[in-house]
Every structure is written in structure tokens, then in C-alpha cells.
């Protein structure tokens, strides 16, 4: 019987979750939303989290109808992520651990996503596509590690979408990706964009520069002036959103399929914030059906960063005997998925 409280604050979401033996008791979250055209900066994000976190801790305990004494372990995101917001979670976790005299566990954010996805969908041993604002990885489990088969060699897919949303001044509420998805539904005009797959890896930075030039022809005048004069075609924002989604999601589905063929697997699990995009899920489902495979995906409650996933992964670690001394309760911006020894899986 493990009852865990998890604190997640690696990016612009601050969330608290409570889980008891795989049963969800509470999952509360607040998002720091910036004005259109602006991204979230570490310092301001941390300030937002500081102001929200204590209220969220109280709200989660109330929702779960628990007292602090009922908890077995306090879990927090150790990394990867932005240091200032990560620190907010870590400091509160350390304080609660000392105050309530409960053990403390630092959890890898990516592992949190994977384990949460497995719990919610019941997928046993899937190929995992982990797509978010900071990560793009194709992962398969073998030999007590989640191994990275393919990943982006530059920016993350969510970062590409967010930055494009900023260029065309889309709202960040509820998220830039969601608004791109909605706008894309209004178009079916495909504009050819670069398509960059290198083995099982992908690259998005070239696509972003290319589409930025299409969206704002005057932005880098010297470079593309001649070309722009030659082709006076007017694309709508919806056309650009549609084409961007079609192109980058096709790349993601392709590398996932490659990993499936390479590992002889027929299950796919999509996790991470971009994973709640319904077009991506649809494309992945078609690919799986063509191969006789099965897709597992979750909705925004569990896809987007949340405290519950940290609580769940932490509870699994705690159950398998992992402990962490207080001196090791720091945060780290760089923490790769394959660094974690997966002690809780027996296969």
C-alpha cells in the first residue's frame, strides 16, 4: 500500500497529484499563460508557481480527503526542465518531507509520463512516443531501462509548434498547440515543407525557419527577398497550421513505425503534451491499423504535465525499494530518460 503525493513544476504547469495503489485520488493543476506572441520565461514562471503551489497542495489533500499523516512518500520532479520552476517544486517537497516526516523521492519527468501512460491505458510493453514542449523521443523498454531509439536532433516538436504560434500571434490559452490544432481544422490546403527524418531521428529547426519565412515574408528580408518576389502566393494562417501539423506529425509517425519494425512490437503509447493532439493520435492510429497494431493514448488530464504522474512513478520507485537521502534532493536541468534504472519492472 503506497500513498504518494507528487509535485510537478518543470515547465509552465504546476501540478499536484495524489495516488494510492494505482487509484487516482487527486490531480490539480495551474498553468502559467503568457500573452500571445510571448513564451514563458524561467523567472516569471517560477514566480507563478510560488504563488500557486501551497494552495494546490491544500486543494489536493482536500480532494483526496486525506491528512498528511496518510501519505507514505512525497515525490517531486528532479528534472529535466527549467531550473527556477523546478526549484519551487523541490523546495516545497523538501519542506513537506521534513515537516510531515515523510520520505522524499526525486522523479525523472519523462519516466513520470511513461508510467502514467502505462497505468491509464493498460499498455504492457509499448513503443513510447514522448512528445512535448521540451522532448521528442521514441522509447522502448529493454533490460531495466527505457532506451531512446530516436529523438530530435535539435528542437522539440512542441517547441516548434509553440514558436510558430508565437510568430502568428496565436493565443497561449489554453495552449498554443491546441490553438494550432483548432485553426488547422479550417484548412485542407497542403503547402510543401521540408521533411527531415534521419534514421530514427528527426529535426524540426529547418522546418520552423522555413515556415516562419512563409508566415512573415519580410522578417528576414535579405535572405529570401528574391524568392518572395518571385512567388506572390498568399497563404492563410490556417493553411500554414494545417501543413505544419501534417508534415511534422508524419515525421513522428514514421520514426515510431521504424522503431516498431526494429523492435518487433505492435503497441504504441503516446505521452507528453503534444500527445493530446487529436490529429497526431488519428495518424498514429491509422499507421497502427495498417500494421495490425494498437494505439494507446490519453487525454489532456494525463498527457499534459501533471503532479499525478510524478506521484505514480514515485510510488512505483518507492514500492520497489528506491530511497533518496535528503542531500540528493536537488534538481537538474539535464536528466536523460535512459539514466534511470527501472527497478519496478520485472520483465
Amino acid at each position, binding site marked *: 500500500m503506497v500513498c504518494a503525493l507528487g509535485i510537478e513544476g*518543470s*515547465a*509552465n504547469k504546476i501540478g499536484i497529484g495524489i495516488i494510492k495503489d494505482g487509484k487516482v485520488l487527486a490531480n490539480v493543476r495551474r498553468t502559467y499563460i503568457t500573452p500571445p506572441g510571448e513564451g514563458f520565461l524561467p523567472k516569471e514562471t517560477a514566480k507563478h508557481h510560488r504563488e500557486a503551489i501551497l494552495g494546490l497542495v491544500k486543494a489536493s489533500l482536500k480532494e483526496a480527503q486525506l491528512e498528511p499523516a496518510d501519505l507514505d512518500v512525497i515525490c517531486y520532479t528532479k528534472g*529535466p*526542465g*527549467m531550473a527556477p520552476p523546478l526549484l519551487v517544486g523541490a523546495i516545497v517537497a523538501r519542506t513537506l518531507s521534513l515537516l510531515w516526516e515523510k520520505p522524499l523521492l526525486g522523479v525523472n*519527468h*519523462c519516466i513520470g509520463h511513461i508510467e502514467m501512460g502505462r497505468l491509464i491505458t493498460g499498455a504492457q510493453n509499448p513503443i513510447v512516443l514522448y512528445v*512535448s*514542449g*521540451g*522532448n521528442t523521443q521514441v522509447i*522502448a523498454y*529493454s*533490460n531495466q*531501462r527505457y*532506451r*531512446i*531509439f*530516436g*529523438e530530435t*536532433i*535539435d528542437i*522539440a516538436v*512542441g517547441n516548434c509548434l509553440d514558436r510558430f504560434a508565437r510568430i502568428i500571434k496565436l493565443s497561449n490559452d489554453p495552449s498554443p498547440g491546441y490553438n494550432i490544432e483548432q485553426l488547422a481544422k479550417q484548412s485542407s490546403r*497542403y503547402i*510543401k515543407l521540408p*521533411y527531415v*527524418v*534521419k*534514421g*530514427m*531521428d528527426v529535426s524540426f529547426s529547418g522546418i520552423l525557419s522555413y515556415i516562419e519565412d512563409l508566415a512573415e515574408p519580410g522578417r528576414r528580408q535579405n535572405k529570401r527577398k528574391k524568392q518572395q518576389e518571385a512567388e506572390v502566393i498568399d497563404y492563410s494562417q490556417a493553411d500554414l497550421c494545417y501543413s505544419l501539423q*501534417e*508534415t511534422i506529425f*508524419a515525421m513522428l*509517425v*514514421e520514426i515510431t*513505425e*521504424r522503431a*516498431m*519494425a*526494429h523492435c518487433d512490437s505492435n503497441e504504441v503509447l503516446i505521452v*507528453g*503534451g503534444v500527445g493530446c493532439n487529436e490529429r497526431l493520435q*488519428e*495518424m*498514429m492510429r*491509422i*499507421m497502427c491499423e*495498417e*500494421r495490425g497494431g494498437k494505439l494507446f493514448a490519453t487525454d489532456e488530464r494525463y498527457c499534459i*504535465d501533471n503532479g499525478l504522474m510524478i506521484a505514480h512513478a514515485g510510488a512505483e520507485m518507492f514500492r520497489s525499494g528506491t530511497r533518496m537521502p535528503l542531500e540528493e534532493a536537488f534538481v537538474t*536541468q*539535464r*536528466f*536523460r530518460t535512459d539514466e534511470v534504472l527501472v527497478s519496478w519492472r520485472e520483465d
Partner: protein
Amino acid sequence: MSLEILKQGAEGRLYLGDFKGESCLIKERFVKKYRHPELDTQITRQRMKAEAKAASRCLAAGILAPKILHSDLNTHKLYMEYFDKATTAKLFIQRTWAANLEEEAKPTLQELCSRIGTIVGKMHSNHIIHGDLTTSNLLINPTAHDYDIIVIDFGLSHYSQATEDKGVDLYVLERALLSTHSQQPFLFEHILAAYRKECGKDEEAVLSKFEEVRARGRKRTMIG
């Protein structure tokens, strides 16, 4: 004519068939319904052309690759030489490791890796970038007392002299080895050692580019 399906890979289906009386392997890149039709056509054509081109370029450079007999862009079918006794390097490594003691398996695998390194080096000195170097894309074809290594699956390949492309190619291979053969972490160093002898005059530049590409992966902060 009914065709026997050998395998459904990520790229397409493989059949056993014949071309002008000669038995051959047919690789059909079927339409991927998840992709926009325009994008799908563009990718399929591009990859079929790349595959045929790179395979013949390799043969001309003395690197073993399947001979392309015929290519049909309308039916998305590529007819090529079939090696019926060949297995993938992936299986070869796994079997060698499982069937032998570590000290016996190691020299065999080191020898294999040296040969792989030589081949990749040769490809790069001829400016052929494979684009998807994994142990599933290298075939081990047994001969009377030995074996040949045959390079396959050139769909992502292209011709480039740029050290960046060669560096990324090496990085893709290293990552494929790390994830597929995590129990044999020594493989890549032997490949690299042999590669350096063969990769031509740009050796230092390619290697430093490779380090740079590697660093991109390691140093990238991962948020969210």
C-alpha cells in the same frame, strides 16, 4: 501471380518474386494512409529514387549492396537481388552473444565491427550517406568459409560531401547500437577505429563534426 510476403518492414512490404525469369526480392512501398497524399507521393518517389541510386553507387565503389533490377514508380515496386541465406547483423550479434561465452563472442563481434567500420568509411569516402545505419540494415551473407556484409535499405540515403551529414550518419549508427545492443557497449568503438582508416582525407573534420553532433544530443536541455 501470388507473391509470398517475406516481411512487413517500416518502409514497405517485401515479397519474393521474379523479374525476367530471375528470382528476386520485390520491395513495395505501399501508400501510407496516415500521410497527406501529396506528401506521401513525394516521399515515396524520392525514397525509391534514392534507393536505386545509392545501391548502384555502392556497387560501383566496391561495397556490396543488392543489385537493382527494375524500378517501377507507378506501382511503387523495386525489384532487387535476393540473398536467401543472409541474416541481419542484429540477429548475428544477438545469436553470437547468446551461443558463446563472452571471451569467445567478443573477438567475433570485434571482427564484424571492424568490417562494418571499413564499409561505412568506404561509403563516406565516396560521399554516400546512408541515412539509416542500423544493424537491421546490414546483412550477413555466409560464404564458403566466411561471410560478406551487404548494405541494404537506402531509402533515406543521399549524396553529400558535407562533414555534417557524415557526422549525423555516424551518430545515427551509434545510437542504433546503444539502443539495440545495450549489452555489448564495446561495438561502436571498433566500428569507429576501422572507419577512421577508410573514411578518406576528411577524417579529422568528420570526427570533430561527429563529436559536435553528439554533444547536441547530450547538452540539449529537455523541458516539459
